[in-house]
């Protein structure tokens, strides 16, 4: 069988239904094979977007997302997408074309050393130099991408390898001597954790993106209700339990809820599940939760003790570890602590100044939540992302998709596209910034081409708003290169130019109608909300400070 056909057949056997990508010389053979396949290929208009779409698809479904690109510039265009997936542990497989084996290393036309380039941003990568290893490589790639701590895997395919003739024998299992992820937690550690929980007077659960990756939502809720304990999340952990649940205190960190941050700082026990204690979540490492013992459950041993000291480490899959824990935990009233947290929640609510004449960006997000509470929401990066995180109360697992670790502007729109391809019948909204949206705006063409009815809500403040906010607060309002000045620009017209629908909204009273209109039309829609230009995101814990040092903007 032609190796290219074998590749496509292997993808089918892995259950792949959609691939995002752009063809080119070095990967032509594979695209030729794809022509006869049931697999739907979505031709994006930039390879970065193909990878983000595969990533969004993976985050929304839990399945492996797949992207294709050609050699050289096609491959290098995938780099930001791969790094984004790597930082957020998203399972994707990227296949790139490469120049023929004999030409590798000679600076051939469109040659780039993509395995070298992506070594530090992939969980693993392969350059296939022997066609007999091709199928084993694909099998391993899918296995590695989705097991243990998931992550991106890249396979570089020299053109002559894809043209070779091979036997189709797809391996049933993989055997990697150096890769045996541990899923079951150590019983002794679990027992220790349970003891700590039973002793604790002020326990709190900190849930991270690992909860989603391990599908441990039910277990987290069960644990929280059994102890009982309040739950805070990281940005990536949003949706670990429904944010409308009385035990949920929202997300913590730089722009997290003040009551959530304060509660963490007052807790005497933190049960951290699948999170990596990033600087954006923890603030100043040395002052994080000073009175608390920390239990850290993570499948990646390298995360344990990396940023904060941990009292009881448990290496294992969150779902399995939590199940064991729940069996042993007994309910215990902690009235004083519950009263205290409720007091914090009352005293420091999330809030912004409403306005009748100018659209507040927070108001737009609130309206999106009100009108489409079950929508899948993706975000771009910047203020838009933080307002989306603050005001959209996530109810379902895998409902909120954002670039947390890398903070990639331009992620949200193609990621929304990927999620929409996976769930054609759901409403998928990208809460966008005017700066970020421009970074992958070409994907409007893809959306129109394939009838992907994503709704882009631009919180248009005519600024690189988050950077401007830092300049305002830390650089005496010296707005160096953050004004996005283009009075002639109309996102509405651009959208229409692509064949999508476009709406411009300038008054608060029009917000609701515009959203309703967008959610009703079965077409991609761009809504350009002209919002308050110098609105800031609060609360705000300045970088490197303790979570108690919150700026409120008052």
């Amino acid at each position: 069988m032609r190796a290219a056909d074998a590749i496509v057949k292997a993808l089918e056997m892995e259950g792949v239904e959609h691939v995002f990508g752009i063809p080119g010389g070095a990967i032509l053979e594979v695209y030729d094979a794809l022509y006869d396949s049931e697999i739907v290929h979505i031709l994006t208009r930039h390879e970065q977007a193909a990878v983000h779409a595969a990533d969004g698809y993976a985050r929304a479904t839990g399945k492996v997302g797949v992207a294709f690109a050609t050699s050289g510039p096609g491959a290098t265009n995938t780099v930001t997408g791969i790094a984004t997936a790597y930082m957020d542990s998203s399972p994707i497989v990227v296949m790139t074309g490469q120049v023929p084996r004999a030409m590798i290393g000679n600076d051939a036309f469109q040659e780039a050393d993509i395995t070298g380039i992506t070594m530090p941003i992939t969980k693993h990568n392969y350059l296939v130099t022997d066609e007999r290893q091709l199928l084993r490589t694909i099998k391993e790639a899918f296995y590695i991408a989705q097991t243990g701590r998931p992550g991106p895997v890249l396979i570089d395919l020299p053109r002559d390898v894809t043209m070779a003739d091979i036997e189709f024998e797809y391996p049933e299992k993989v055997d990697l001597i150096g890769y045996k992820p541990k899923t079951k937690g150590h019983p002794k550690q679990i027992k220790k954790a349970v003891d700590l929980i039973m002793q604790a007077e002020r326990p709190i659960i900190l849930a991270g993106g690992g909860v989603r990756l391990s599908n441990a939502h039910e277990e987290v809720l069960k644990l929280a209700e059994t102890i009982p304990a309040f739950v805070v999340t990281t940005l990536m952990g949003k949706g670990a339990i429904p944010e409308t649940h009385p035990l949920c205190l929202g997300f913590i960190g730089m722009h997290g809820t003040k009551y959530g941050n304060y509660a963490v700082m007052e807790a005497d026990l933190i049960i951290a599940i699948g999170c990596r204690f990033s600087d954006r979540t923890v603030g100043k490492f040395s002052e994080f939760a000073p009175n608390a013992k920390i239990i850290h459950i993570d499948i990646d041993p390298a995360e344990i003790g990396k940023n904060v000291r941990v009292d009881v480490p448990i290496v294992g899959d969150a779902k399995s570890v939590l199940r064991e824990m729940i069996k042993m935990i007994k309910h215990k009233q902690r009235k004083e602590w519950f009263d205290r947290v409720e007091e914090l929640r009352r005293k420091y609510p999330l809030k912004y100044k409403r306005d009748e004449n100018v659209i507040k960006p927070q108001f737009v997000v609130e309206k999106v939540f009100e009108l489409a509470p079950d929508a899948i929401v993706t975000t771009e990066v910047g203020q838009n992302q933080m307002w989306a995180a603050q005001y959209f109360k996530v109810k379902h697992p895998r409902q909120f998709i954002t670039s947390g670790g890398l903070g990639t502007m331009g992620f949200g729109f193609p990621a929304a596209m990927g999620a929409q391809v996976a769930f054609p019948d759901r409403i998928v909204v990208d809460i966008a910034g005017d700066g970020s949206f421009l970074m992958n705006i070409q994907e409007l063409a893809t959306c129109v081409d394939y009838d992907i009815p994503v709704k882009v809500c631009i919180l248009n403040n005519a600024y690189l708003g988050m950077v401007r906010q830092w300049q305002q607060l830390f650089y005496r309002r010296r707005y160096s290169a953050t004004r996005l000045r283009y009075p002639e620009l109309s996102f509405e017209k651009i959208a229409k130019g692509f064949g999508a629908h476009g709406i411009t909204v300038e008054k608060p009273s029009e917000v609701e109608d515009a959203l309703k209109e967008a959610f009703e039309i079965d077409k991609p829609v761009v809504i350009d909300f002209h919002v308050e230009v110098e609105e800031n995101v609060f609360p705000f814990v300045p970088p490197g400070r303790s979570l108690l040092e919150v700026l409120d903007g008052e």
Partner: protein
Amino acid sequence: MSERRTIAVLVENKPGVLARVSSLFRRRGFNIESLAVGTTEREDISRMTIVVKGDDRTLEQVMKQLNKLIEVIKVSDLSENSVERELALIKVHAPPAKRSEIIEIANIFRARIVDVARDSFIIEITGDEDKINAFVDLMRQFGIKEMARTGKISMARGSKT
């Protein structure tokens, strides 16, 4: 506290593995003091002996991060209770008047003269690092023209592997 630590890393013998390991050290900001790579009792497995500088926490991170590489099979800390050896080749300036003195020192260190030219020797010495350092210091007075050291290899004492 910053100390030197020795770790042994068993890896699959495949192209690119060395690059992965060294790239990991660079990316995570760990410093390699020395690195020696060679085959083992199995031809599909290579062994790297790496000396790093760092405190307990750095060492722990180094080992955990190495373990995450798919092609890394095993990582062990050999900082204590292990046999360590290094080999050095030293080309030393050896005019006729100095030769007997050099030979005498070499004998004391159980070093071997493996090449003799008109006014130089190549001396081979094996041993732990301190021994080699001491020998190199003594050779300096004669003038070292060239030196190559293999970097340390190391193995845990006893039956533990």
